[in-house]
């Protein structure tokens, strides 16, 4: 659904202001669409829910998985990266991704411009939804801001327990600029490359999860393993907190997925029920997969499945029927389980909290699977106009483009961070924990 987006938004919101004021006024007098408070209300709620996913949600999910000596470092990196992303978003991010001036020609595939410092936004300007409705543009800006913030934070799951705080800040700023904003534009903006291609991505499977997952992998490889990994045991210091984080992520994800409809309508309802059942299915299937491979169904397995399901249903939320969603959740869960517990130990990299293993892999399964479950034969809302094979091929292209773009951009961003900050803490700090070494505190006294 999101693919129908943003040209409209731009028309209703920003570009009106790009014309002469007089003309704008005239137009406004005639036609100025007024947001229905119900849609605004839902979108503000959704925005708040996505913030809750970051802090405390993701901070707890990731933090519980680290060792207690790195708990504060993990939570602070997430919080501060998100905060930085918010400031950058209002300064140049919104403009680059959804600015009113669509650049001409080739470059317009990748970025827009024209609303630096939100210059074109007022309390009365609006962004179009997918029907004839509009929502307040400030609400749209806020909603999209939280997406940028959480994506930046997700990447850090692969680099915790060893990356300098200063490096996190530099990396985030560069990475958002050269990776996130262009990909968001490509997928969601009217003139964007993948948008024009016809890729389906309801709530950001590509923009958020594949993107974050791949970037996490690349960053983890460049950064190197944690001292002692994998020989030394590094059990999660509090799975209780990880479960709390999981719950909050699930709760918040409804803002993410059902919010992406931009209206409080029946399709938002569809996105909601899909987000429930795909997740429930994925949580249980991960435990089942553990069982089948001879272990006990674990709490962390349940949590991992929940996240895998949420990730996979993200592009499919409004693009699937409930049973497509259940199957998609189950498949994504099993695939992620295999990657994380069978494949990863064989490969050499240290993706500390499995940002790639779950967000990257789950995102790819979801993106491609969306091409399938979208079809009416599987109960999806598609009208069958694009054949399944063709749609899947479009989806694969979108995945590949994001994959390559994210990988290259991350290499650049991480080397810039290395140049400026040195990237990695000293072995002593790593041994002693980043809480004391980087922040001078202990999480628990």
């Amino acid at each position, binding site marked *: 659904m999101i693919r129908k987006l943003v040209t409209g938004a731009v028309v209703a919101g920003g570009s009106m202001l790009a014309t002469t004021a007089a003309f704008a006024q005239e137009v406004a007098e005639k036609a100025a669409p007024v947001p229905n408070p119900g849609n605004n209300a839902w979108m503000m709620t959704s925005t708040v829910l996505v913030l809750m996913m970051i802090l405390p949600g993701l901070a707890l999910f990731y933090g519980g998985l680290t060792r207690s000596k790195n708990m504060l470092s993990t939570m602070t990196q997430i919080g501060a990266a998100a905060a930085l992303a918010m400031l950058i978003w209002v300064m140049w991010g919104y403009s680059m991704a959804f600015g009113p001036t669509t650049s001409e020609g080739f470059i317009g595939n990748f970025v827009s411009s024209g609303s630096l410092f939100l210059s074109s936004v007022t309390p009365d300007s609006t962004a179009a939804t997918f029907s004839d409705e509009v929502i307040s543009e400030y609400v749209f800006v806020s909603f999209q801001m939280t997406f940028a913030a959480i994506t930046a934070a997700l990447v850090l799951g692969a680099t915790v327990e060893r990356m300098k705080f200063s490096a996190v800040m530099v990396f985030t700023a560069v990475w958002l600029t050269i990776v996130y904003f262009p990909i968001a534009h490509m997928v969601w903006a009217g003139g964007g490359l993948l948008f024009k291609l016809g890729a389906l991505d309801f709530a950001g499977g590509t923009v958020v999860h594949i993107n974050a997952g791949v970037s996490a992998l690349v960053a983890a490889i460049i950064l190197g393993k944690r001292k002692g990994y994998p020989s030394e045991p590094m*059990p999660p210091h509090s799975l209780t907190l990880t479960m709390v984080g999981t719950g909050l992520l699930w709760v918040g994800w409804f803002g993410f997925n059902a919010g992406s409809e931009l209206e409080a309508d029946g399709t938002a309802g569809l996105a909601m029920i899909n987000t429930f059942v795909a997740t429930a299915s994925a949580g249980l299937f991960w435990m089942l997969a553990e069982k089948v491979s001879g272990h006990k169904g674990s709490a962390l397995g349940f949590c991992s499945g929940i996240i895998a399901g949420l990730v996979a249903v993200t592009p499919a939320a409004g693009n699937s029927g409930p049973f497509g969603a259940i199957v998609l959740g189950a498949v994504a869960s099993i695939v992620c389980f295999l990657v994380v517990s069978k494949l990863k130990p064989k490969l050499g990299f240290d993706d500390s909290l499995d940002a790639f293993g779950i967000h990257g892999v789950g995102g790819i399964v979801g993106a491609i699977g969306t091409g399938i479950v979208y079809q009416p034969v599987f109960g999806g809302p598609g009208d069958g106009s694009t054949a399944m094979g063709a749609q899947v091929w479009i989806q694969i292209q979108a995945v590949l483009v994001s994959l390559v773009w994210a990988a290259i951009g991350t290499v650049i961003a991480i080397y810039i961070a290395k140049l400026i900050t040195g990237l990695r803490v000293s072995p002593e700090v790593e041994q002693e924990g980043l809480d004391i070494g980087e922040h001078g505190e202990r999480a628990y006294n």
Partner: protein
Amino acid sequence: MKFIIAVIKPFKLDEVREALSGIGVAGMTVTEVKGFGRQKGQTEIYRGAEYSTNMLPKVKLEIATTDAIAPQVVETIQQVASTEAIGDGKIFVLDLASATRIRTGETGDTAL
């Protein structure tokens, strides 16, 4: 006097304490410890990484006693704490040169 150090399974603590107070042991000091011995721990799995730890939660008792009742204390602990399963723990007896009650400054047997 003797200083007795016993490492036992945590769930035996209450039973042992009751048995000891039955034979007149007025006090003791208890610490949560991790034991390492013949008993093997469960395997824990976190996303495919297996940790098989031999460090098991135990409880350590420290009891200062008179020479007279020390053997009885050892015997009582041994009998009550035993489940006849591996990992039941140990009792160590050391010589205690002196004991002082902080509240009163009393020393020797009466301080226990």
